[in-house]
């Protein structure tokens, strides 16, 4: 095989790539005319350049077929329950009222998990049913998504009505201390409230600092997405083998069983893809009542920077009826419409 002159090789490459300046191109052309090796080299690179472009066309021709394959695979794929919970959670955070309903989603998920791992499905089915047809639940919810401070909310769910009181925040971000001071000064237990009625398809946001309110219609999709009957189906896919009883604790004299769900097969295709990232759910269950005492959902995801998100549910009360006033959509006295 012939070699180009040492000084010329790079210039020839640039020439073929079309990035050699006019003057240099002219000098090169002169040299090529009188040098067989370099002339041959130019021809070879040009030929390869052409082949590469032809290969590009060839690859392009099959691109639609490759996409079809991906779409076929997508059609086969249905996400597992936990993935679904977390992605549902993201939508929820974009729409305040759905935050409320989401809590119910996760509780139902937890209950189904517990029923599956405890094995006593028949007995537990009844408990799930009770909660799905929720008479009343309240609990404390703490959630941290990314670098946001962890917000603490008190949730009340009763039938088709739901209320969330933002009661505080954790973290060392600036402003949080101010928030806490301000609440104390005004003698407030919550700085914002959201009240939703899924039967009336209406919601109201209250800002207790500014004394403003905002009323909203809940669209059919929001209502439908969180219709509880569907939720049960959504969580059927959690596999018992993903769960493990990892221990027991004593809390206020009550026996608590701790269950862990981990390495949930998020792809349904290849377990190794989830690798060290993934999501897990820890559920503390009161043994006597078979009801969750605490639920912790954690997700870590390393593609978009190392981040860990978590949602914790605690301080549950079950079936202790609340005053209907708590869910009233009447504007409280002294509150004005919020300006946009």
């Amino acid at each position: 095989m012939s070699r180009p002159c040492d000084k010329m090789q790079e210039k020839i490459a640039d020439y073929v790539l079309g990035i050699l300046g006019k003057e240099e191109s002219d000098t090169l052309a002169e040299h090529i005319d009188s040098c067989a090796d370099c002339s041959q080299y130019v021809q070879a690179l040009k030929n390869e350049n052409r082949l590469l472009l032809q290969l590009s066309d060839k690859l392009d021709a099959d691109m639609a077929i490759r996409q079809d394959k991906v779409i076929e695979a997508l059609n086969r794929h249905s996400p597992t329950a936990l993935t679904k919970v977390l992605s549902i959670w993201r939508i929820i955070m974009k729409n305040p009222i759905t935050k409320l309903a989401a809590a119910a989603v996760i509780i139902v998920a937890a209950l189904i998990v517990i029923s599956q791992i405890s094995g006593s499905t028949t007995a537990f089915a009844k408990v799930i049913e009770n909660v799905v047809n929720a008479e009343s639940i309240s609990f404390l919810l703490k959630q941290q998504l990314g670098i946001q401070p962890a917000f603490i909310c008190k949730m009340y769910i009763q039938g088709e009505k739901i209320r969330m009181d933002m009661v505080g925040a954790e973290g060392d971000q600036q402003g949080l201390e101010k928030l806490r001071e301000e609440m104390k000064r005004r003698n407030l237990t919550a700085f914002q409230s959201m009240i939703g009625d899924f039967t009336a398809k209406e919601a109201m946001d209250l800002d207790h600092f500014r004394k403003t309110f905002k009323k909203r219609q809940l669209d059919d999709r929001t209502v439908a997405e969180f219709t509880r009957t569907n939720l049960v189906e959504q969580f059927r896919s959690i596999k018992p083998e993903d769960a493990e009883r990892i221990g027991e604790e004593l809390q206020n004299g009550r026996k608590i069983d701790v269950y862990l769900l981990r390495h949930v097969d998020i792809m349904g295709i290849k377990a190794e893809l989830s690798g060290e990232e993934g999501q897990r759910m820890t559920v503390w269950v009161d043994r006597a009542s078979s009801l969750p005492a605490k639920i912790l959902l954690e997700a870590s995801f390393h593609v978009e920077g190392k981040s860990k998100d978590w949602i914790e549910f605690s301080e549950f009360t079950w079936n202790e009826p609340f005053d209907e006033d708590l869910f009233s959509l009447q504007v409280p006295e002294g509150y004005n419409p919020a300006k946009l």
Partner: protein
Amino acid sequence: MNDRSDKDLVVSCLAEDKSAYKLLVRKHYKRVFLTCLGILGNVHDAEDMAQDTMLKGYIKIGMLRDGSKFGPWTARIAKSLCINFIRRKKYAKKIVAERIIDANRSVNQYDNLQLAIEQLPQETRAPLVMYYFDGQSVKKVAERLEMSKSTVYLKLRTAITELHNLLAKQGDSK
């Protein structure tokens, strides 16, 4: 084609609209595939990893905070999947060696070219693949690979001269 922005499509995906994700696949597949091809060098492996990337994107879509970043986000997923793939299979050494033996039987000029591309070092292959297989825009390559334009030129120059050497060697061995 569709005019909906990535951001808009990602929001629809969050509401479990699979058809929206399919549009994202149509829009972004080629770029993801070429990213994988740039790292792996082999078309079949790149197809597998591009598919895994798209599926993983679908599953993880809830983790994407800014829908307009769907492109760079999937590129990162593709990179991490490909790197894991290489690590897992001790890929580069063994499989390429097998294919060289194979290539002696093949007669197609494109096969030889693909084999040569596969043998290029990854850092010159990625710019070559992006440049030749996606519209020959140095600017685009520079953005995608987060390099300066002048670095891209340098790598391309190295890539085509290296490629020539590899092809010439193939010719000699026959």
